[in-house]
């Protein structure tokens, strides 16, 4: 623990706030605490989360696949239905894990456990807290991603060596959702409001080219879906695991980069306003 003195936490009206007061370089402490809490209470629940995408893959990919047959990608390549939805499920798993950790979990800690107030009264700054929580969510996302990709490999659903890049892609997606999720949560006041997060997640899950190509929709609906973050994640991962790689994938990367930066800035500002000013 270094650096931050009491002066660093003085109201911003007194003097311009240096980065140092936001970030004490100790997100690790926040992560460690979260990891310990998880490990001691519900690690089984965390690990079991890996089964969710696997159940979907088996049911939809293999079961439903018998009704759907093959799907044609944008480059004309024909892939089996399981190979089509597996990357989408991977992106969805990243979203779900990150959103759970950064919304419900954070909300609970903020409203009930009053954890952050305690943390911020030590030398930790708001950015430590935000980054710590988000990195923890990423760790969980990485766990799911590696597990699920192994299953995909066994089932022969990684069609290209590009699939190796799906892991960093999944982390990027998780990072994006985690930072945005935490930013949104910092504005939430009640459980009822938290329910609204589900109302946004469900349509994203169902419509973002997860189970069938966007082309079945009218043009206007396609635009709406393309504005949503999950679609970019699905397209990015799908491009990598099926080997349908082109420069266009970088647009998806850019989308997430912006999401991460905006999310982090808003979260840090909010935490400062809530707990320090």
């Amino acid at each position: 623990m270094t650096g931050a003195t009491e002066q660093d936490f003085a109201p911003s009206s007194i003097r311009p706030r240096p980065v140092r007061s936001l970030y004490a370089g100790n997100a690790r402490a926040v992560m460690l605490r979260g990891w310990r809490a998880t490990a001691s209470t519900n690690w089984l629940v965390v690990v079991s989360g890996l089964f969710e995408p696997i159940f979907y893959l088996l049911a939809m990919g293999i079961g439903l696949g018998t009704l759907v047959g093959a799907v044609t990608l944008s480059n004309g390549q024909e892939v089996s239905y399981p190979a089509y939805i597996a990357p989408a499920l991977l992106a969805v798993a990243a979203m779900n894990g990150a959103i759970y950790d950064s919304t419900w979990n954070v909300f609970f800690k903020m409203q009930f456990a009053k954890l952050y107030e305690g943390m911020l009264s030590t030398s930790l700054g708001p950015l430590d807290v935000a980054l710590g929580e988000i990195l923890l969510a990423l760790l969980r996302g990485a766990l799911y991603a590696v597990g699920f990709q192994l299953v995909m490999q066994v089932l022969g659903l990684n069609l290209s060596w590009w699939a190796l890049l799906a892991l960093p892609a999944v982390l990027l997606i998780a990072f994006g959702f985690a930072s945005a999720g935490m930013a949104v949560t910092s504005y939430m006041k009640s459980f009822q409001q938290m329910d609204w997060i589900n109302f946004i997640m469900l349509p994203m899950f169902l419509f973002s080219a997860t189970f069938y190509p966007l082309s079945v929709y009218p043009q206007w609906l396609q635009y709406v879906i393309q504005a949503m973050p999950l679609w970019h994640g699905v397209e990015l991962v799908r491009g990598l695991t099926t080997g349908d790689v082109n420069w266009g994938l970088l647009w998806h990367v850019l989308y997430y980069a912006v999401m991460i930066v905006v999310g982090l800035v808003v979260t840090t500002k909010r935490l400062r306003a809530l707990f320090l000013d």
Partner: protein
Amino acid sequence: MNVTTGQSTDAARAIAAGRRSRRWGAWYVTEHRLRMMRTYTGTVVIAGIGSPLLYLYALGVGLATIVDANMGPDAVDGVSYLVFVAPALLATAAITVASEEFTYPIMLGYKWNPTFTGAAASPIRPVQIVDGVVYSVIIRMLVNLVLFYALMVLFGAAPSPVGFLGIVASLLGGLAFGTVIMGYTSTLQEDTGQLAMVQRFIVLPMSLFSGTFFPLAVFPIYLQWIGWISPLWHATELARVFSYGYAEPIWLTLVHVAYLVALIVIGWAWSRRIAVRRLNS
């Protein structure tokens, strides 16, 4: 002197005062539960209309486009995929309500915010608390199912005139699953993740592998037992019989009904037993 003569005016007054609660107690509990649900009416209504809309459109229209393209217009069971999948979505909606209302609220009532203990100190009997909770969930389920069915009709997903009986089938399915889960939740002294596990390893696989999105027959025979024990499969098949005249032998239809009713009886009785044990020990 006998301590319980039952002869005094006090005793007579007590016996008169206890009459209404003995008779209607369960409904007073229902009244209480509905009042609690009113605090999240917005969620119920929006989820009640929103999720059927989303599911019917995503699966019944979106996914159906590629299924029908692959299998022809009589895609599955001789009907379009929309018609095939809609009754399953209806039954799943009942399961969703059951898995919400019969898990955390039960844990809440016994432990976190022990309103059940509060009710047990009044003339209400423990079995009436269980009954009252079940009645209130039936009411909420019916609201959701009727909304869902109305949307099915709008989507043209319920061709038969007796399709509305699918609401009853779904209700049976929701209660069959729900009362058993209620029994299980009642036995928990502490939630250390068991309820999340139920969600993940029972509710989710059940909703995926119960002949919902594709016929059970797609699976090899050694996996089909998952469907046979699943209340959702029985409710879905039953709803399909009503919705588009899905052809199955009449004995099988009777088995669906019998199985669901049996689960309800077992789960309900189990929940009542545990309530007596926990609230009157």
